[in-house]
């Protein structure tokens, strides 16, 4: 499988990030995995790496909802206002613990790739790769 150029994990929970890094690494999805601890950090990374198409501009962003400083929704609002040349090539998937009905409505009104219930698994990742990148993990 062709690896993604870069992926970005956004979660304030270090353990979650650790486990997701482990999973992604084990599944050989990318060699370039960035981690941000909140929306603000993620926004900075996107600003730095995606103004021009660089190898460090993530093709996939896995975004947690509840975070300090700037949460997932706030990140999306700010992201939508960024003038980026190749936005459509950046897939954002939200990761949630359980969706409050109110949040479901919010997520669906956003222009994102989708949302997944935590925890992240091999199967869920495979679905994302199939749906958005037209590739799948080896059996």
């Amino acid at each position, binding site marked *: 499988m062709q690896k993604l150029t870069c992926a970005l994990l956004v979660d304030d*929970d270090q*353990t*979650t990030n650790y*486990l997701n890094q*482990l*999973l992604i690494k*084990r599944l050989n999805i990318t060699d370039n995995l960035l981690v941000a601890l909140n929306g603000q950090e993620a926004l900075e990374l996107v600003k730095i790496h995606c103004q021009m198409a660089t190898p460090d501009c993530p093709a996939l962003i896995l975004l947690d909802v509840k975070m300090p400083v700037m949460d997932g929704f706030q990140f999306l609002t700010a992201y939508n206002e960024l003038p980026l040349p190749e936005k459509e090539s950046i897939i954002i998937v939200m990761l949630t*613990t*359980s969706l*409050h*009905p109110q949040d479901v409505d919010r997520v669906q009104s956003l222009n994102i790739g989708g949302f997944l219930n*935590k*925890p992240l698994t091999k199967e869920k990742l495979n679905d994302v790769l199939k749906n958005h990148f037209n590739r799948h993990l080896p059996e």
Partner: protein
Amino acid sequence: MSEAPLPTAAELARANEELRYQLEEAHDLIHAIRTGAVDALAVQGTEGPRIFTLQGADQGYRTLIEQMNEGALLLSEDATVLYCNACLAGLLECDLSEVMGSAFETFVPLAFQEYWAGLLLKGWEGKSKGELPLQTRSGALVPFSVSMNVLSFNETPTLAVIVTDLSARREITAIRAQVAEQNALLDRTNAELKREEAARLAGERAAAEASRMLEGISQIAWTVSPTGANTYRNRRWYDYIGQAPGEGPGIGRAWRERLHPDDAAATLARWDESLRTGAPYEVECRLRDGAGGYRWMLGRAQPSRNEQGEIVQWIGTYTDIHEHKLALERIDQGQRELRDNNDQLTRVNVDLDNFIYTASHDLKAPISNIEGLLDALLAELPPEASQHEPVQPILALMHDSVNRFKRTIEQLTDVSKLQKEHGLPTEPVDLAAVVRNVRLDLEPLIQSSGAQLEVDVDAAPNVMFSEKNLRSVVFNLLSNALKYRAPDRVPQVRLRARPEGDAVVLEVQDNGLGLDAANKQKLFGMFQRFHDHVEGSGIGLYMVKKMVENAGGRITVKSELGQGSTFLVYFSR
């Protein structure tokens, strides 16, 4: 005559003698005429004597005229009195001779001369009548009525005049009028007096009756005048204020003086308004008793009215409502406390709901992390370590614990979802279909337990509910009935449905373990488990109860330890 020489004494005596003779002659003549002895008489006029003849046939009339009680006279055309009867002379206080031959107008007062002339004129034309005063010799004016007729004596017309004294009649009329007026006044006064008396009696009777009645009643009673002045207080009042009637200053006996300061203004305003408008009086107020304490009273008064609709008195009562009022206040207080408690409980409930949601949400991340870390650790362990004692059983137990933790969180999440499910749309759900479905799911359990399941829902094929929840209710009740079976007998489970009043009742009866009274209380609580040999979360019945109650229904249980249980679910239609 003044030019004639003075007569001598002898001449005078002679003339005198002659005059006396003439006078005697005249007297005799008059007498003769009046008695009817003479039929004619000669009257010395300016143009010589004139002869008046009386017809013999008139003698009877003349007697009549002489005897009647009216004055009668005959007047010549020049208004000389040709004849008058004794009665007329008497009325005029004159001698007959003074009247007869005189001009009658000498008796007519100056002011009536014209009137008299008019009467004469009319009389000569035929007839006339009138009233006028005549002057008597003493100068007094006496009222008379006169009536005139033309008569003919020997072809000589005369005017016959009847004169009636009116003074007596006038006087009587005046007196009568006065008497009548006086009588009328008396009658009026009498009627007034009678009416007043009757009213007074009626009032007194009413008052007496009222007081007799009021004396006997158990309330404080009083009457006052229409202006509000006290007229009566019954014994209860004196008992209440601890005074004898008439004891102490009068002002101290009035209820207005005994009002609680906090109630006085409003109560008096109400009472004054009633006195002013006649509207019934009703008020709750505190009145001071003999010991100086205040008790709550219900004050009422009604005006009593007479037949004319006027207020004759007010009858009022004061009923002691002190205990009642205090009880009401206690109830009020109790209700306030209940409301406060309720509010507090509602707040706690909301907090609890939020807590369950937050807890289930926030616990999810760490437990899936633990699970992930466990898996990662497992991947790192060499197979010889992970597949052997003691690591293998430790890992297995850790997995079990993580799974149980996750299940609990799942259930908590379900519960928190349920809390937010209020007002879920209900629809007619085919109960039989739902039962069939659940039965299929439970088939392995039915088979393994050898249970006999009897279903009869024909009497109530449809239930108004959410289908998902109805399934959950049926599933929980049936699986409980099977799970908590008595080990020593064949499980018999009966599921029946029937309409009952406004509801549909779903009944699930088993012959299982049953519950004692103490556990029945906790049965529907969250995480309540009474048996450790059976796999259970302790959340099923809590969920069932929530679902049913959220849809306006209720659930009850009848159970006996060692006998079995019957769950009754009432679905409102």
